């Protein structure tokens, strides 16, 4: 099964092209991982800047800065950039860096395709962002691109759809690579149930990606043909139905949100044992819980559409299925807490972010459960309550986990320790401001403020102001993050191979910084190096 033997490096080409060519032509998983991570950080700042436009406009009632059309473009682009440009590439970057090292493989299974998956992205986002400068403006129909509204968009629609196709192709190839790597490149002794959870969660995520990105491609292709070729998929007059789009979109969209969180679960599952100096509790249960979440994610999509007027039976089905997801997710939360329980904890920055994740993801998950209750969702839907829910799971969930992962592995990548003091400041500043930013949005939603509006009634003023202040504070904290990372790349106290006292796993057996090629000769793996014990074997 574990086929990886020593690696044979190709000698036909120049060994190490330098300068730009090095990055354009590289097939090395670590360099490609770096490319992904840098790209993701840039996109995070761009998407964040758009969010700040939103928050600035919403600071006070009345229209001050932007017109409504541009506001809608910001909302749409913010979401697309954050999801497809920031969070997904960040996870792929981490996968690239860490998976081969964690499983003892020489590189990703398909190194050339790996390069391709990455390099499609900058081009795709060039197209997407260029629509902002088109006469018709960027798409303004929300990231969900519901027809018929999205079909009213100007020339940009075709560009947006083709850029989404490119992103999809990139994601699918990236996912194929991850699966092939995990199934194929493991060192001898690295059985499936010895793999770190980050590897497991990515394996399952990759499966989700391959299953649903093509569905998104199908949905937007139908938009394209409805707009340009006279088809009637989403037009009742021709026998179609606008709601059909929503079904197809959310069949993609809901698994997509788990694509954005499962690798985060993986990262947290690596960090908590390390800083608790205790092996992961309930490893096997964690694997099964992840798989269960992934499976269930295909059965809940219509919880985004409770107000479209579905038959009663369908609403009940989707409500129950959605609620059930709380169970495997709860298993994960409880296992993490049990891992910490009676451990010997220290609180370096990665652990702080992991704990922040634990608390705030749970808050987001619990509000998700409330959204699942159909009659109540008749009130919550399309209000700021939903906005609050998904930013808790996305920002304090996915993004916090990514930051935790970056702090955790940064010494391994650069060979230097980051500035711990600044890291802690970053954590506390972010955690306080992010709650100032998103917690009041729950109240706004309950009080009746719809989402995607550029202006609001007077009674929503105070909470919006608080939220905007939190938004700017959180934004500046992220500039600090960029600075900390940059500083660590430039220098710092040298890191040891193990870096963290409690760290276990193959990646901590190689020197820091990890040499360009690790495990050309596969290591021998047994329970002594893994961060958990497979309690069934």
């Amino acid at each position, binding site marked *: 099964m574990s*086929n*990886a*033997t*020593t*690696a*044979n490096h*190709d000698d036909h*080409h120049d060994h*190490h*092209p330098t300068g730009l060519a*090095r990055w*354009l*032509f590289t*097939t090395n998983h670590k360099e490609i991982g770096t490319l992904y991570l840098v790209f993701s950080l840039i996109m995070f700042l761009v998407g964040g800047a758009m969010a700040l436009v939103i928050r600035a406009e919403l600071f006070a009632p009345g229209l001050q800065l932007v017109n409504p059309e541009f506001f809608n473009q910001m909302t749409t682009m913010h979401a697309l950039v954050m999801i497809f440009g920031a969070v997904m590439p960040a996870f792929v970057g981490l996968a690239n860096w860490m998976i081969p090292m964690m499983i003892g493989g020489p590189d990703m*299974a398909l190194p*050339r*395709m790996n*390069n*391709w998956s990455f*390099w499609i992205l900058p*081009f795709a986002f*060039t197209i997407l962002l260029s629509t902002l400068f088109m006469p018709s403006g960027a798409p303004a129909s929300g990231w969900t691109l519901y027809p018929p509204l999205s079909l009213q968009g100007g020339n940009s629609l*075709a*560009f947006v759809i*083709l*850029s989404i*196709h490119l992103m999809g192709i990139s994601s*699918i190839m990236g*996912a*194929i690579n991850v*699966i*092939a*790597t995990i199934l*194929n*490149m493991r060192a001898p002794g690295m059985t499936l149930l010895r793999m770190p959870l980050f590897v497991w969660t990515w394996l399952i995520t990759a499966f989700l990606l*391959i*299953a649903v*990105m093509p569905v998104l*491609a*199908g949905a937007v*292709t*139908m938009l*394209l*043909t409805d707009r340009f*070729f*006279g*088809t*009637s*998929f989403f037009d*009742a*007059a*021709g*026998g*179609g*139905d606008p709601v*059909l789009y929503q079904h*197809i979109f959310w*069949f993609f969209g809901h698994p997509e949100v788990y694509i954005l969180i499962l690798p985060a679960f993986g990262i947290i599952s690596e960090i908590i044992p390390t800083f608790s100096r205790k092996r992961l509790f309930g490893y096997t249960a964690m694997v099964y819980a992840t798989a269960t979440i992934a499976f269930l994610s295909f059965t809940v999509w219509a919880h985004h559409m409770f107000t479209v*007027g579905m*038959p009663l039976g369908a609403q009940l089905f989707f409500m129950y299925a959605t609620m059930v997801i709380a169970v495997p997710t709860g298993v994960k939360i409880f296992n993490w807490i049990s891992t910490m329980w009676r451990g010997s904890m220290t609180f370096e920055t990665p652990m702080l972010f992991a704990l922040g994740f634990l608390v705030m993801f749970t808050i987001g998950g619990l509000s998700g459960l409330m959204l699942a209750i159909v009659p109540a969702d008749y009130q919550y839907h399309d209000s700021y309550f939903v906005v609050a829910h998904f930013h808790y799971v996305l920002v304090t969930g996915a993004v916090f986990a990514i930051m935790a992962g970056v702090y955790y592995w940064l010494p391994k990548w650069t060979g230097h320790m980051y500035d711990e003091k600044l890291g802690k400041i970053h954590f506390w500043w972010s955690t306080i401001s992010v709650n100032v930013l998103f917690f009041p949005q729950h109240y706004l939603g309950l009080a009746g403020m719809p989402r995607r509006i550029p202006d609001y009634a007077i009674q929503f003023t105070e909470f919006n102001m608080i939220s905007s202040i939190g938004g700017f504070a959180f934004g500046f904290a992220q500039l600090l993050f960029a600075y900390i990372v940059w500083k660590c790349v430039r220098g710092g106290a040298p890191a040891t191979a193990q870096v963290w006292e409690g760290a276990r796993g193959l990646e901590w057996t190689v020197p820091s910084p990890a040499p360009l090629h690790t495990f050309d000769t596969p290591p021998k793996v047994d329970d002594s190096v893994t961060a958990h014990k497979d309690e069934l074997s």
Partner: protein
Amino acid sequence: MAQGAYYVPHSTKWPIVGSVGMFIFAIGAANWLNSGPTGPWLFAIGAAIIIYMMFGWFSEVVRESEGGLYNDAVSSSFRQGMIWFIFSEVMFFAAFFGALFYARMFAVPWLGGEGTGAMTNELLWPQYDATWPTHGPAERGGDFETIPGFGLPLLNTLILLTSGVTITMAHWALKKAQRTALVVWMVATIALAVTFLFIQGYEYVHAYRDLGLTLGSGIYGSTFFMLTGFHGLHVIVGTLMLIVITIRCAMGHFTKNNHFGFEAAAWYWHFVDVVWLGLFIFVYVI
């Protein structure tokens, strides 16, 4: 596993060439859709770059493969890649099949007043009677006739099924190292593929010219042409793959134990075949 190391190429220009090609292709396509004058040109240039990239990239892979650089683990990675790629294609078709089922089982009956659609029909489309095929209550695209399943489509089904057999014969020949038989069976497969495409093309012309059935014929026309059209596109790609593989067979590539390229094309061909069966049943027959 026996033959040594996992091959990791060090650097490559092909992906970036491909990305640039896709970029130009996408911009061209979008421009073209918006009737921009440069659209078709960019589209063509992009396509040319992509083809050039595929040619270059695959030649490199073929060279490496024939040069014995790949061990079993590498070919296993390729296999995984192909399997999951095909799975993604299946899901792409699933979206369109989903649209078809939804329209037939829900949207159209609701418009006709069934279930929760009583008021929809009564207030908005009182004259509309839900039937399948339909071009919707507004009779989009005017009257049309459908293509009966048990005519040319049935023939096409038989052709594709036969091609599934011929390619399997080719595979056996390859495994028995019978080079001539291999090439003959491959050529037969290609001939069937081309015949299929020819018939499909004829059918489209017939539909547009004589039956009034177009992409704009309401939901029926939409699902019919998008499903069969994307399938046809995949048949074209599959045929190109078959042609390349046949040439390689004729050039003496592949051994009885090591012929990933052949298998990939064959899997793809079977996938195209199975999708057609779905189409035949759900689009033409039922």
